[in-house]
């Protein structure tokens, strides 16, 4: 199963995708609250976000997948506010305790399996510096999420992704 988190219109996204059943799509089609930094997803309702909306169970849903695919407008070398909000609300996926990876402090994994992570960034006139930051960001996210394989792609327009997402 794959989790696809994106910031496009859902109808438009479906035109870009091949028909598959093993995919769960997280779209910006219902109001999403913002992470309030309470760490309730670690110390109150482990893995689940305490905020009550359609996005409170992102971490347990990611745990049922073997790949996370992100489609995002590249924003200052990072994700767009919606995609970032989904990631901020998903930190229950990792464990609050720390471990050391590559000489740095990171969070331990909550789940034993390792995900693959693919990011498709789109945007016109992205600078090489923004692309470098976005590439490094996916690597850093992968290190924190303890992913196995990490891939990053850039496009000028979302249309260019057709047939390349899955």
């Amino acid at each position, binding site marked *: 199963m794959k989790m696809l988190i994106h910031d496009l219109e859902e109808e438009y996204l479906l035109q870009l995708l091949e028909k598959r059943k093993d995919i769960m799509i997280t779209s910006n089609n219902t109001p999403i609250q913002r992470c309030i930094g309470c760490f309730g997803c670690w*110390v109150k309702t*482990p893995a*689940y976000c305490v905020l009550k909306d359609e996005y409170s169970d992102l971490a347990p849903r990611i745990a049922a997948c073997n790949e996370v695919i992100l489609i995002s407008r590249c924003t*200052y070398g990072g994700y767009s506010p919606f995609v970032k909000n989904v990631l*901020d609300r998903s930190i229950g996926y990792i464990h609050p305790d720390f471990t050391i990876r590559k000489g*740095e*402090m990171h969070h331990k994994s*909550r789940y034993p399996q390792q995900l693959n992570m693919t990011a498709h960034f789109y945007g016109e006139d992205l600078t090489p510096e923004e692309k470098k930051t976005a590439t490094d960001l996916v690597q850093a996210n992968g290190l924190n999420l303890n992913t196995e394989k990490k891939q990053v792609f850039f496009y000028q327009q979302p249309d260019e992704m057709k047939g390349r997402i899955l």
Partner: protein
Amino acid sequence: MKIGLINGSPKKINSASGLLLEELKSLLMKADGSVIFEEWNLNEKEITSEQLMQMENWERMIFSFPLYVDGIPAHFLACLQKMEEHLRTQTGQKKPYVYVMVNAGFYEGHQNRLAIDMISHWCKKASCVMGQGLGVGAGGMLSSLEKVPLGKGPNRNLGKALQAFSESVIHQKTESPIYISPNFPRIAYRFAAQHNWRVQARKNGLKPKDLSSKPKIQPKS
């Protein structure tokens, strides 16, 4: 000189970002008593058009926010987009120099590097000049060190870094980022943090093993 102090933490009270701004503010006031501060807390609220207009009078703008998933918290990112749009359209007007402090729960200050780079990219889009970034590690322990004087004990590195950073702000310097970790062993920080999670879990009626629960739900396809 007018300086905008912008707290991008989603926490309403006791944020490490707010503490860093308070410490910096004291240093800036000591260096130049004539500085006027205008302060924003961007937790939850949408940024208003009145606030956007306020930016036009600032000579410096200082952001302070926590590292979220290796980057900028989503709510603050949305505010930055509105600020960028406003600043970009203010052609012919002098733009504030931008200084940014990012604090991470991780021990190593350099883990804030990408968030600082993102603010540099934001500056280019908003036609502002990036002054300097300060990446602070172990942000989780800042509130417990509030009573320890800057430059002393575990706050030794933080004191030095904030002093240098405040001088950059006052003199409108463009400098390389500073990254600091506390003067406190990493292993001790790690164990203190992990103990704290268990204390909080117990207060919420959980057992320590509950912190490791592994719920999985099949996706709604």
